[in-house]
């Protein structure tokens, strides 16, 4: 059969083969050696599952129809059979298109009237195609007899009491299997149905046994009967569901989005500035602590989920990184495992570069990182399986599927008309239709993606913005580039389309301010970087957003004076920047502050020299021999010098003065010179353990040696007793078998032995690498471990399966 499949592939034209590879790119990773290998891979479970994941709901339903319509003997179906099965629930044209989709992917192959389904499809999809149970004659002869007589079956179903009818309807809608509650008592309606053979109790081999009771299954024939009204395949939707959310004016969408984008950039800046002012510690388990998140969120006036999202995005964009507490960036070699260095989160050097970009470029950097980051910020603040809260930047919020989920969600929005603002549920429904197998279990990730898009301003008023659309499509399409080897990393320099579009929406930077009498300074728009830097120094920010409001305070003026502005500079600055006359109050404030600035002077000195005798001080200062001391007069009675006190005293004494040292409290300190000595040494005679002869072994080292010897002994003894194959497997290959095959064989032996409760020789490698054999009675074989009892020592051993080299039943 595989050959037939391969032959079909081989007979394809190059174009057709190329088309297949385009549809299923994973077939050529790595490139198969020949068409047979390609065929094997195309029929493998992994590849088929991946192919099914990308199919929409309708196509999958048609595939289910194909599975249902297979003839019992040949396992073949045909286009006609599928169309017939679907009946009037779907347009034959739609069906045919879907069938062609399946054939193009070689999930169905063969001629139209003898279509064959790739075997792996049954393995990777539900055993109940279209939610219908298995045929009655497979399940139970009595049910088969009932189903064979359609009239009788219909009567039986119609006679069902209301409770039983409800159970039937539920199972008919699929899945057709229901669990019975534990405790042995079966509810009356179900009991009735089982008695009538409408439901068949199953305890299925294919499914794991359920602790909460047995299962019942609705035979396929009964299901089809119950689905008379809705059609045998249930409700079919050949077209994606159309969201009926409001449609906004694309202009207001862009406007709201751009406003939000601007906010997001500003928030990131505020968060990182707050972090820079007071760095947050890296938790032992990785990530940022809850308290730090709260603090940062408060500083930025944000709610915690948004703050968490923006911190994650900033980290992904490389604006934020770890450093050791001393402030050195974490090098490649410094490992977190050392645990000795306390680490902190700090803005990186990249942050400073990022700040120099335009708002739109800054936003793009954030948005692209957000799209690509393998993190799910929505998990932050939730509890993990051990009921501990998940922190931002912690490994718990890592989700490999997150970028894919974000792209899917945005792509779903992009398929809609511009301005369409579907509700989150509608987007999820659309995604569930587009790729049901993939969307299942990803609802949270998709919701998270939509929430993130709103926070970052990729969407506005719930609809995708024009620049958001560009960012979303700027991403290299993954299908054509599965290895990410495309030009994504080496994008052409210069502004991307998204940046240009967003730039046009954002307000132009302004270079002037309005100064008012209440000392507030209003920048009526986003300030130019230079203006922002000036204002950061001379005023306190009060309110930020589209415009910014600063207030000049005596503190802020002092700060400006501290960094080198003079009063004249400040007056000039405000005169130059202000469009309005500078109020008198501000002029006074600057002058008053400047007057007081520097009224106190502080400095450091190595030593001081004081005397109540001003003449004496003058004499010292005038003495040229004391020039090297660089004495400076602070007051008529005080001199200071940068040199240490000992040198000062020495020099003064040499010059014939009689100084006395004093301590911090001012009392005189008298000192006698210390005699110099070398470091103490131990005399040779008292050294211990210097006798000749071999070293004495003691303690753990001795025990180790003994254990090693004994282990060798045991191994030899056990090996002598063990059968040849077990011994032979230890260390060398059993002739005729590869090691994998030998292992497989050993597993088979052990499985049988568990069932037979037989004793087995087990050869294994212990944790020291020694090979041993042991005669044991296997008890269980699960979760990678063999548990077996050693009857001789009456102990229960646990062997890791991968350490077992051979197993032979005791003769």
């Amino acid at each position, binding site marked *: 059969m595989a050959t037939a499949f391969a032959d079909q592939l081989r007979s394809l034209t190059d174009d057709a083969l190329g088309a297949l590879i385009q549809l299923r790119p994973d077939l050529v990773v790595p490139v198969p050696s020949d068409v047979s290998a390609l065929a094997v891979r195309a029929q493998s479970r992994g590849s088929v599952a991946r192919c099914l994941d990308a199919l929409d709901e309708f196509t999958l339903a048609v595939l289910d129809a194909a599975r249902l319509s297979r003839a019992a003997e040949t396992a073949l179906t045909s286009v006609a059979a599928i169309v017939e099965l679907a009946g009037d629930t779907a347009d034959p044209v739609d069906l045919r298109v879907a069938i062609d989709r399946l054939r193009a992917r070689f999930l169905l192959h063969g001629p139209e009237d003898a279509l064959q389904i790739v075997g792996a499809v049954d393995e990777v999809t539900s055993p109940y195609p279209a939610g219908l149970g298995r045929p009655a004659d497979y399940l139970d002869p009595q049910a088969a007899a009932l189903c064979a007589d359609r009239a009788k079956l219909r009567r039986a179903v119609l006679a069902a009491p209301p409770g039983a009818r409800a159970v039937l309807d539920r199972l008919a809608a699929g899945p057709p299997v229901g669990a019975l509650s534990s405790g042995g008592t079966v509810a009356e309606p179900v009991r009735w149905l089982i008695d009538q053979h409408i439901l068949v109790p199953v305890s299925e081999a294919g499914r794991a046994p359920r602790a909460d009771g047995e299962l019942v299954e609705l035979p396929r024939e009964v299901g089809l009967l119950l689905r008379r009204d809705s059609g045998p395949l249930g409700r079919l939707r050949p077209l994606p569901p159309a969201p009926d959310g409001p449609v906004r004016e694309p202009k207001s969408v862009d406007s709201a989005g751009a406003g939000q984008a601007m906010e997001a950039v500003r928030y990131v800046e505020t968060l990182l500035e707050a972090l820079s002012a007071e760095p947050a510690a890296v938790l032992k388990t990785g990530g940022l602590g809850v308290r730090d998140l709260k603090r940062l969120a408060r500083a930025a006036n944000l709610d915690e989920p948004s703050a968490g999202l923006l911190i994650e995005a900033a980290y992904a964009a490389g604006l934020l990184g770890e450093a050791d507490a001393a402030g050195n960036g974490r090098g490649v070699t410094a490992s977190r495992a050392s645990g000795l260095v306390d680490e902190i989160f700090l803005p990186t050097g990249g942050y400073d570069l990022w700040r120099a970009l335009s708002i739109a470029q800054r936003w793009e950097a954030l948005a692209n990182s957000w799209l690509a980051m393998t993190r799910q910020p929505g998990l932050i603040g939730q509890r993990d399986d051990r009921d501990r809260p998940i922190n931002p930047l912690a490994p718990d919020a890592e989700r490999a599927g997150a970028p894919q989920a974000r792209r899917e969600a945005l792509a779903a929005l992009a398929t809609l008309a511009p301005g369409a603002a579907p509700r989150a549920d509608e987007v999820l429904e659309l995604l569930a239709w587009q790729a049901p197998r993939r969307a299942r279990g990803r609802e949270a990730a998709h919701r998270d993606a939509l929430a993130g898009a709103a*926070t970052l301003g990729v969407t506005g008023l719930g609809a995708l913005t024009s620049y958001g659309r560009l960012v979303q499509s700027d991403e290299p399409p993954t299908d054509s580039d599965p290895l990410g080897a495309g030009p994504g990393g080496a994008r052409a320099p210069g502004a991307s389309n998204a940046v240009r579009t967003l730039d046009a929406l954002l307000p132009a930077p302004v270079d002037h301010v309005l100064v008012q009498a*209440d000392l507030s300074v209003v920048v009526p728009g986003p300030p130019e970087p230079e203006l922002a830097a000036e204002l950061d120094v001379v005023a306190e920010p009060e309110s930020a957003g*589209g*415009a910014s409001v600063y207030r000049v305070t005596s503190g802020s003026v002092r700060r400006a004076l501290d960094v080198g502005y003079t009063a004249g500079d400040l007056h000039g600055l405000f005169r130059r920047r202000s469009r309005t006359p500078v109020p008198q109050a501000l002029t006074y404030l600057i002058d008053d502050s400047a007057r007081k600035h520097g009224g106190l002077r502080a400095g450091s000195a190595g030593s001081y020299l004081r005397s109540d005798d001003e003449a004496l001080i003058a004499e010292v200062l005038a003495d040229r021999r004391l020039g090297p001391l660089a004495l400076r007069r602070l007051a008529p009675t005080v001199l200071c010098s940068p040199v240490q006190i000992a040198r000062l005293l020495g020099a003064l004494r040499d010059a014939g003065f009689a100084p006395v040292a004093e301590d911090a409290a001012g009392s005189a300190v008298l000192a006698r010179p210390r005699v110099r000595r070398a470091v103490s040494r131990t005399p040779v005679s008292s050294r211990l353990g210097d006798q000749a002869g071999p070293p004495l072994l003691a303690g753990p080292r001795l025990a180790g040696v003994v254990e090693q010897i004994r282990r060798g002994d045991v191994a030899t003894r056990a090996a002598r007793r063990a059968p040849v194959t077990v011994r032979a497997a230890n260390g060398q290959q059993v002739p005729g078998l590869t090691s994998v095959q030998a292992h497989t064989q050993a597993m088979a032996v052990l499985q049988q032995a568990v069932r037979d409760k037989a004793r087995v020789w087990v050869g294994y490698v212990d944790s020291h690498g020694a090979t041993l054999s042991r005669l044991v009675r296997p008890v269980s074989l699960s979760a990678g471990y063999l548990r077996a009892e050693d009857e001789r020592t009456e102990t229960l051993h646990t062997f890791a399966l991968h350490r077992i080299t051979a197993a032979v039943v005791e003769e």
Partner: protein
Amino acid sequence: MTGGPLIVQSDKTLLLEVDHPDAQACRMAIAPFAELERSPEHVHTYRLTPLGLWNARAAGHDAEGVVDSLIKFSRYPVPHALLVDVAETMDRYGRLQLVNDPSHGLVLRGLDKIVLVEVAKSKKLAGMLGARLDDETIAVHASERGRLKQALLKLGWPAEDLAGYVDGEAHEIDLAQNGWTLRSYQQEAVDGFWAGGSGVVVLPCGAGKTLVGAAAMATAKATTLILVTNTVAGRQWKRELVARTSLTEDEIGEYSGERKEIRPVTIATYQVLTSRRGGAFTHLDLFGARDWGLVIYDEVHLLPAPIFRFTADLQARRRLGLTATLVREDGREGDVFSLIGPKRYDAPWKDIEAQGWIAPALCTEVRVTLTDAERMTYAVTEAEERYRVAATARTKLPVVRALLDRHPDEQVLVIGGYIDQLHQLGEYLDAPIVQGSTTNKERERLFDEFRSGSLKTLVISKVGNFSIDLPEAAVAIQVSGTFGSRQEEAQRLGRVLRPKADGRQAHFYTVVSRDTIDTEYAAHRQRFLAEQGYAYTIVDADDVLGPPLPQVD
């Protein structure tokens, strides 16, 4: 980018550029929902607060409209999150209603069952709610109406009070508009109040708040209880009411420390109501003494905490609050909102001044340099005494004298906070002093003399902060105050803002000691007025003291 006059900030402040051609239209559009926070000369700041948004909602504005006007006038894109927040906040008002049920009396009705369930299980409402009548209604005892509203506001689910008001005992009151008429903004204020049922009217000092009260009484035509800050203010009210309404002296009672009259219109002081004997409030009976149809609270920003508690029990009566500023130093604006009512009318001071209703004022800060001896004293003073030392510096005295000399023909008030300093001033300037210990009789005599013009200069202490009406005071000189109190500064400025007969310029001087904490407090006090658009001019004491410079050209 629309190039509009408004900039919406993410901290929910709105910046309105006054010189923009659309500024006036924008102000009209945003006034209903945004609180005017500051109005300096170029850029006015409004703030979106939950209270303001709920006020707007109460007045019938919906979220859609608010969002529309923000987007329409905004110069820059408005952040999406802010719009969402506005809509959500506004949506919270009115989900709960207090209504009168014909069979159960006062009930809390939830238009949203989930909200009702949420608030019903809140511990803060324990004991206020009665039996659950059905899915949507819970009985409320009539006496809990005020406290329930207060608590619901704190929970963020403000209730709409539709339970109505009792009419009270009817009493014929008319405005006697002989030779004067109600100003347009006063009429607007009364209409706004009456339509809302209860609430606060914010007007600058001297803008005729008393008349708004009188007009409200004439609209209610019912017995009225007026609560004022002190006896002098009460007498002032009485004089005004007799002059401007059909009420006669006999119909107006005074309920104060001296007299305990209860008449159809009764004026009571906060002080007497909050006085206690043995831990119990002894004058609470006043609230039940008559079936009041209207309660007027003068100077609502000073309302003492116990009065809030009494007010909680008066929710079935119409309440009118009058104030120049809603800024409370204790931050209890929320209680004013829930217990007295939302703000019903507000006008920027400068607008009213521009219309000529209050006198234009020139504010000047005079900086005196302390003598070296005074600086040394100041330098070594304990922190808690520093302000007193700086504010009461003797150096200020000659400056005050010099300022008086600048206005030889004007009525001048010298205002201070420290009695010792006032006595010094009194002696130095040879002027009488009104202080806390001055008897009411003496006070009235001095005020009458001042009013008549026979007394030119009056030194007053903190007692003068409130509600004394001195129409012809054209100059006020402030030498010390209550630390950095902003509302005190506003009140004192109000003393000179009442319109002068000849439309003269009013002057407001603050004398401060340079390089001391006095300057800092002065700056803090001036913040409020600067935000109202009053720019202070700073002059040096030497310029005041020295001879005027000769003209050289």
